[in-house]
């Protein structure tokens, strides 16, 4: 599903985030990416929906070489990759419902369909009763779950999460991870960058440790 072949990312100024990264994640796998800050976890994740382009090497997603993807096709790649951020990246001037509905509206789903799917996604993350609330009135854990609902509402084949439990207490972190496991069980390829080693050990999925831009 996700294949990196000797991918190097060099930023202007010479800083190298990835140095010849080789990595392969199978369809339907659940993988944790670990490593110290600056090891290249975020850069790796951001290359999958083409938020970054590699300086060298090739990235294949679902058999498509991203280097050959035309600019106009990038939005359609991003629709197939649900991305979850540590800082949630919600729109604060819109209700929870509208935030979760955004990917469906972008994809041009019909009105009735949107309502049904948004409620299903909110129900999944346990926030159906908050659909009219504004994101700012929610706790950090709740905002994270709105972000997750938005990422999964279109049922993408891949979910990426960058430090999804970074600011949460252990109980909430466990809840969030359980949600990801549920999505993975229905066949979604799930990639999570995290440094919550204790939790990762306990869950026991495949773990890829990055060090200085390479698989250690």
């Amino acid at each position: 599903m996700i294949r990196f072949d000797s991918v190097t990312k060099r930023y202007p100024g010479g800083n190298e985030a990835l140095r010849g990264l080789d990595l392969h994640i199978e369809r339907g796998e659940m993988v944790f990416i670990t490593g110290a800050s600056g090891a290249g976890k975020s850069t790796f994740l951001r290359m999958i929906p083409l938020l970054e382009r590699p300086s060298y090497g090739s990235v294949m997603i679902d058999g498509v070489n991203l280097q050959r993807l035309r600019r106009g096709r990038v939005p359609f790649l991003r629709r197939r990759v649900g991305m979850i951020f540590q800082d949630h990246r919600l729109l604060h001037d819109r209700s929870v419902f509208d935030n979760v509905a955004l990917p469906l509206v972008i994809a041009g789903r019909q009105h009735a369909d949107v309502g049904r799917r948004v409620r299903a996604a909110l129900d999944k993350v346990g926030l159906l009763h908050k659909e009219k609330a504004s994101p700012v009135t929610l706790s950090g854990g709740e905002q994270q779950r709105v972000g997750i609902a938005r990422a999964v509402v279109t049922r993408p084949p891949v979910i990426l999460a960058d430090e999804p439990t970074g600011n949460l207490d252990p109980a909430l972190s466990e809840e969030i991870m359980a949600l990801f496991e549920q999505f993975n069980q229905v066949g979604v390829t799930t990639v999570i960058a995290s440094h919550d080693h204790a939790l990762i050990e306990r869950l026991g999925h495949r773990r890829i440790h990055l060090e200085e831009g390479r698989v250690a």
Partner: protein
Amino acid sequence: MKLPATLHAWLEQHARAAISTLGGLRLRLASSLMTTAVIGIALALPAGFLLLVDNLEAATANQNGTPQASAFLQADLGIDQQRDIANQIQALAGVTEVEHITPEVALSEFQRRSGMQETLALLEDNPLPPVVVAQLESGLSGVDADALVKALEAIAAVEEVRLDRVWLERLDALMQLANRGSGLIALLLGLTVILVVGNTIRLDIENRRAEIEITKLIGGTDAFVRRPFLYTGMWYGLIGGSLAALLLIISVFILTGPSSRLASLYESNFEPMGPGLSGTLTLLGCGVLLGLLGAALAVGRHLAAIEPR
């Protein structure tokens, strides 16, 4: 009727953008009103000038548009001689039509129009000479017109020739100048509308940077991101255009009284025209076009620069 799903989705996305941007303008009511007022005035000014020129043209159109020459004959000619001369003038090159006005007809016309019946009745005999009014070919060159005047003056019984071509030409030149001037003003103020809308949309894009980034992040196409801004520009133009049409209609309404008085002093029953349906539609169309153009300019310059982090 069942529409194909993709067309339905497309229509729904456009309807959504159209309605939500209109709602957005209402949310920022004060600033939206100011922007549309600027656009409305900028559109109303050139449209008003053009309307003024149109009205002037309509007001002077009953001068028949074509130049005419009046030949005043000797007062002591008999009616048959007058007719001979009229026929003679009719035969000249450049004359399309003649009207023979006998002193009697001229007097009664004068009495009717001037309202000085009593005074004129005191006159012992008719002081007015017989007149032959010749309609000249429109577009007669200056040289030909001069030749014609000479030919008229050469007729022995003609005392005086008056050509009213000069003031018509002057009026015509004045109208052309006014038309050209209005076009120039329209061009500049149209540019103003584009810049005003462009700048407003640029600020709008700046304010909604986070939203644009997130939309692109979760797979919004450029067209999707662009759409609300283009609709906002269109609404500005449409509302501004309506405001301009309203301003014009109110102005014409205010000016109708005095202008009718002026017209009656010139013995005309001229009434000023408003923009009318086609004028209003043109105004709205121009507003929409300029609004879209301004928005497209801003979107083209600023949207591409925003990429998700």
